[in-house]
């Protein structure tokens, strides 16, 4: 048995400066707030707002693909602007900002037992710069020539040439500026998330006692801090190419019979830089989702997460490996073909830790006590879509299989399933799970179940059949699928079906938004710990937590985050801050 030191013998960590965190007026409390919880809500609200724009853009795209020629206002030019902005917003301004800026800000301080982030002022700046980046992005819709239509990968040379919408107008300039701002803002926030996990942990909260949510967000932030500079470098250099006529990425070009001034630049260099950021970015979105879903499954199956240590090692391993797989996005880019051997091998190796995570999730369900709450439903749906999307990744990662499939709808279906649908299902699950902590009220159950079923089944019906279009050879990024010998009549029907499903799923999100707003006032009172969970955010004295999170004394942690259904304990969960020793087989540490 472990020695249990009485709680009053230990001074709680750092309570002296609690007054520092108290805001003084309305502005500093709700607008220019330095409280991570307020910043989290600001981040989430902004990300959701811009995400709605991206949702509408996806509808417009699907109108064109599902019913070609019916909607005159969707010109090829407009179509490319829609796909570009849809992709960019979803990947960076929605998912990255929501997982790290939203969930990271809210959950890290609460889960590690800190009063706030370690640099609250910088944290506040981070949000405002993010907002500025979003506004610059939005402004490109109103600029002459409209937003850029270069595809979210922004490949030069076409991204800054006149054959691409926004290439010789303001679109691309505003896009690159917005990315640069986003990266600066993110770095400020990211420093906070990392250092708070390093230095803000309360007494007894060792790294191996952290909930996997924190591990996921922490690792993802470290990766983001190291990966985003690559996008920064690429953006700055492309901006110089576009504005000042340098030739970093621009080779000699004869455009429509006219010789451009550039010379010697390397488009492949841009692709290397872009994907050096772009591949870790996939895991920057996925790792927080991995972490959160682990906690959702464990809490709602009333069972400890199976193989916690393996889960931590897998997160760290995936994080490290994801920096040496970037060129699997470039198998057919014309880089040296021998790179294919190396990158195919590393890419398929990364499947192993990922598979372990999946096994451990389903093994957590085994012999559990599964409460089919809405967060649990979303977690189950995540596993289905993630396994599906992850397995199609084995097609695309295996270099020679990628040759026919790259740049087809198969790729579109794959990455939507694995980094679109799957993480967003986790976002929904997480919102249903933590909403009671943020607002003190539960989201409406009936609306929630409706939202779940339509979103999950609808999204699966959108993206599963889409793989087969890619298998036929239908290329992605085609504004018109007419005049093509491979497009059969039935394939057009399939496209119409996918479009209709996209509208249905999109409208289900409106129900969700309504639920979010309606429940703030009319939801059922939740109480402090409605899910009977162990982690620290559920043990706050007030709900929603007040400034400083934990009242006078910070909690002291006595156990790991997953003491569910411990034999010998009366309840089926033991909060992390509850002293005492339980269980049959506990050995001394």
């Amino acid at each position, binding site marked *: 048995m*472990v*020695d*249990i*030191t009485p709680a009053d013998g230990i001074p709680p960590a750092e309570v002296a400066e609690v007054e520092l965190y108290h805001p003084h007026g309305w502005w500093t409390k709700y607008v220019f707030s330095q409280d991570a919880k307020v910043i989290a809500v600001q981040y989430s609200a902004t990300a959701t707002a811009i995400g709605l724009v991206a949702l509408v853009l996806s509808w417009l795209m699907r109108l064109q693909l599902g019913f070609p020629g019916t909607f005159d206002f969707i010109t090829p030019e407009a179509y490319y602007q829609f796909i570009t902005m849809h992709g960019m917003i979803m990947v960076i301004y929605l998912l990255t900002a929501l997982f790290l800026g939203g969930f990271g800000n809210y959950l890290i301080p609460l889960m590690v037992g800190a009063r706030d982030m*370690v*640099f609250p002022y910088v944290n506040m700046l981070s949000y405002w710069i993010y907002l500025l980046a979003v506004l610059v992005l939005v402004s490109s819709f109103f600029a002459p020539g409209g937003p850029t239509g270069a595809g979210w990968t922004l490949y030069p040379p076409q991204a800054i040439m006149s054959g691409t919408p926004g290439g010789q107008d303001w679109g691309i300039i505003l896009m690159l500026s917005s990315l640069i701002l986003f990266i600066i803002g993110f*770095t400020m926030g990211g*420093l906070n998330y990392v*250092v708070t996990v*390093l*230095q*803000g*942990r309360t*007494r*007894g*909260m*060792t*790294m*191996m006692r952290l909930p996997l949510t924190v591990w996921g967000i922490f690792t993802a932030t*470290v990766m983001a*801090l*190291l990966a985003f500079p*690559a996008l*920064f*470098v690429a953006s*700055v*250099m492309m901006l110089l190419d576009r504005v*000042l*006529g*340098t*030739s*970093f990425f621009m080779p000699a070009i004869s455009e429509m019979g006219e010789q451009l*001034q550039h010379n*010697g*630049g*390397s488009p492949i*260099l841009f692709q*290397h*830089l872009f994907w*050096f950021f772009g591949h870790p970015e996939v895991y920057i979105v996925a790792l927080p989702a991995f972490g959160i879903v682990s906690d959702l499954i464990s809490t709602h199956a009333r069972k*400890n997460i199976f193989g916690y*240590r393996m889960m*931590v*090692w897998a997160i*760290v391993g995936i994080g*490290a490996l994801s920096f*040496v797989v970037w060129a699997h996005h470039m198998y057919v880019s014309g880089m040296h073909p021998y790179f294919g051997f190396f990158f195919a091998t590393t890419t398929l190796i990364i499947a192993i830790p990922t598979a372990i995570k999946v096994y451990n999730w389903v093994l957590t369900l085994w012999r559990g006590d599964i409460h089919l709450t809405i967060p649990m439903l979303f977690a189950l749906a995540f596993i289905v879509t993630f396994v599906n999307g992850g397995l199609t990744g084995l097609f695309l990662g295996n270099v020679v299989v990628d040759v026919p499939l790259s740049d087809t709808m198969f790729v579109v279906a794959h990455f939507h399933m694995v980094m679109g649908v799957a993480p967003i299902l986790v976002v929904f699950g997480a919102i249903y799970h933590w909403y009671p902590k943020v607002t003190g009220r539960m989201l409406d159950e009936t609306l929630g179940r409706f939202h779940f079923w339509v979103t999950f089944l609808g999204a699966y019906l959108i993206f599963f059949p889409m793989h087969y279009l890619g298998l036929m050879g239908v290329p992605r990024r085609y504004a018109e699928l007419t005049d093509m010998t491979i497009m059969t009549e039935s394939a057009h029907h399939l496209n119409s079906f996918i479009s209709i499903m996209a509208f249905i799923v999109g409208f289900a999100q409106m129900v969700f938004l309504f639920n979010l707003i309606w429940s703030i006032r009319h939801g059922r009172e939740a109480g402090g710990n409605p899910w009977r969970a162990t982690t620290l955010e559920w043990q706050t004295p007030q709900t929603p937590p007040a400034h400083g999170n934990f009242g006078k004394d910070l909690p*002291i*942690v*006595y*156990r790991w985050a997953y*003491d569910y259904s411990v034999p010998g304990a009366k309840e089926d969960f033991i909060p992390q801050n509850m*002293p*005492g*020793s*339980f*269980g049959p*087989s*506990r050995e001394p*540490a």
Partner: protein
Amino acid sequence: MSVILVFLLVIAGFAGWWLSHQRLMAKPWLEQGLASDFVGLDRSALPTAKIGLGVFLAVVGCLFALFTSAYFMRMAVSDWQPLPLPRLLWLNTGVLVLSSVALHCTSVAARRGQIDTVRLGLATAGLTTLAFLVGQLMAWRQLTADGYFLASNPANSFFYLITGMHGLHVLGGLVALGRTTTSAWAGTRPERLRLGVELCAMYWHFLLFVWLAIFALLAGWAATFIDICRQMLT
């Protein structure tokens, strides 16, 4: 991309070293209570601000490593014509070394509580840093006057881009230095001032290191060095 991979390997080394002290092999479900041997795992004894700055410097280092990687990859194309570095850069290097030394002395003085030396040191560091920036601008002007424009050759583009990026970071540092200097005159608590000075010194040493590295890169020594290494390996 080899430069950035080597840089990340170093970062991974640090991360691995730190992780190896976090008892990753422990079975946390068996360890209840607050056994005294966990206390050491709580957090580092270093001030939080220093750790924050350390993480930030890793990000900045990553940025410059990526510029260097891009430099080497672009250099391989045949249209690359190295530009003659202005002599002035040597002087600028000296000035930047001076400001770094000044800040080092300042942090020693701050530890001893010699407030006058601290003020003197901060002022010297600020002035020499300004002189460095002015010197860099003059080097730019000299190059443009000689016809080495930004867009005329990729070597020129990289020169302006990398020195400019470094200059911006120095400028950012000056803001922090300015704040520390004001607080030195305003009479802040000594331990707070000491932390501020130490943070500035850390940042300056790092930027000096980055400058020396990119100076070697732009002058072509880095490429020569790599060639020699490659020859020794084969």
